[in-house]
């Protein structure tokens, strides 16, 4: 299994990670080694086996549908890169 340059571009776009032309060769080569490792799984017979998503067979606990949190907006926004008037600032998306 080997990633094509197009597949790598698609992947980096999906993951929102910029990869420069210079880096892409090394990134692809090392990714391919990992994909080679995980490809071993294809040979395993897993017919009739239920996927295991949790280490213990427990059910998801649900809490009561009541308000338990108080407003801590200013505390949480104190660590944000850019805020104004209680809002998070991002680059303009609509002209």
């Amino acid at each position: 299994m080997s990633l094509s340059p197009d597949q790598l571009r698609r992947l980096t776009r999906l993951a929102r990670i910029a990869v420069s032309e210079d880096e892409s060769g090394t990134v692809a080569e090392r990714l391919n080694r990992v994909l080679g490792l995980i490809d071993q799984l294809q040979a395993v017979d897993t017919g009739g086996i239920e996927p295991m998503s949790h280490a213990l067979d427990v059910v998801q606990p649900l809490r009561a549908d009541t308000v338990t949190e108080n407003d801590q907006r200013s505390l949480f926004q104190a660590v944000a890169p850019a805020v104004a008037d209680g809002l998070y600032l991002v680059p303009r998306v609509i002209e």
Partner: protein
Amino acid sequence: MLDSGLGELQAALAARRVSSVELTQLYLGRIRDLNGPLNAFITVDEKTSLEQARRADERRARGAVGPLTGIPVAHKDIFCTRQLRTTCGSKMLEHYTSPYDAHVVEQFERAGAVQLGKTNMDEFAMGSSNETSYFGPVRNPWDRNRVPGGSSGGSAVAVAARMAPVATGTDTGGSIRQPAALTGVCGLKPTYGLVSRYGMVAFASSLDQGGPMARSAADLALLLNVMAGHDARDSTSLPRAKEDYTRGLALPLNGLRIGLPREYFGEGVEPGVRDCVRAALGWFEKQGARTVPVELPNAALAVPVYYVLAPAEASSNLSRFDGVRYGHRAKEFADLADMYCRTRAEGFGAEVKRRILVGTYVLSHGYYDAYYLKAQKVRRLIARDFAAAFAQCDLIMGPTTPGTAFALGAKMDDPVQMYLNDIFTIPAPLAGLPALSVPCGFDAQGLPVGLQMMGNHFAEAMLLGAAHQYQRATDWHQRVPKEAPL
């Protein structure tokens, strides 16, 4: 005093032979002396630690004494703390200070402990050598040209070099046990769900588990008493009654059935590791324990399963780092999408990016069934192997790692070689099982070897008891690293 365990420190504090301020100053001095060469701590704030120590002494004077009142503890820099920044070993969080404390941090505060600082780690806990940290590699005090293991390498070295009496760590695929083995200390990964993940920066949520690191199993038991317990803020935290993990320390070894998986004693294990582990098993047999062969036929698949599931979960968990609500934001960008892409390209290191890309790949359209679901099915096969093995034995033992500490830089160019270092530690968390590593000797180069013990779900007390009995008869854990003399 630097060499004391928790029991001796508690006694010295209770008898007023030492104050918490004096004890904290002692460790802070040791950190000042050794952190330059070893790089075990990312953040130390002497003023904050000494203030906490002063308050602990005040509480003691009033008679308000908890199980760890006045005892300094080092926290892995993955646990959120309000008073010290939390970097997770990443440029992404270099300047991040959390608005809240992790559950584990709160538990230590309630027990009266003093925060000594935040320990270095592989970036976002992704690594087995501590070389992926944005803050530089941690060095092994037994040989500074070698790695301490990872990802909790800073905590392991802090304990091994007596820069902290005890520390916290987290384990996803071996991140407590592997560095414990490579630095000659003890580390326990509890049953999944025993320790709350609230305020622990998420890597792979179905596997991540916090746990204690110390020089003795007896200290691990005292720390687990503080760390374990139900917390409604983590939906995977188990609603179980509190246990006293020191209750099983006097475990009788006569008749104990120790399972030896063939897969853990094959080729690929260095002779120095194999000999130490065999000798330790011989000691257990002399105490009346019985070794029984068991099989974990799918254990070899644990590494590929893990490198599907952990990156898949990581790619989802780390999507929160977008430069909007906290953490690094790129200075230059064309538009919103470009801001995300550049922020993440600048903020994450190569290994973290690689795992996010692998995770994105295995979860993407057309590959989900072939990789992600397939890996979840093989995960169940591995869990079933353990269930069958535990029908025949009480504990499973084997080496923690196939080799001792390797040279800095030796495996950084080949991710797969690095990943295979965790071949013996990855199976237990896939099955949610508790496992610990205890020092069991040194190889010909004088590097520590770890004996791994795995138990059935909630068998922590038995694991700790077996390790404690072994440590009563051996002094491997009391040896002082060559490059950090007392």
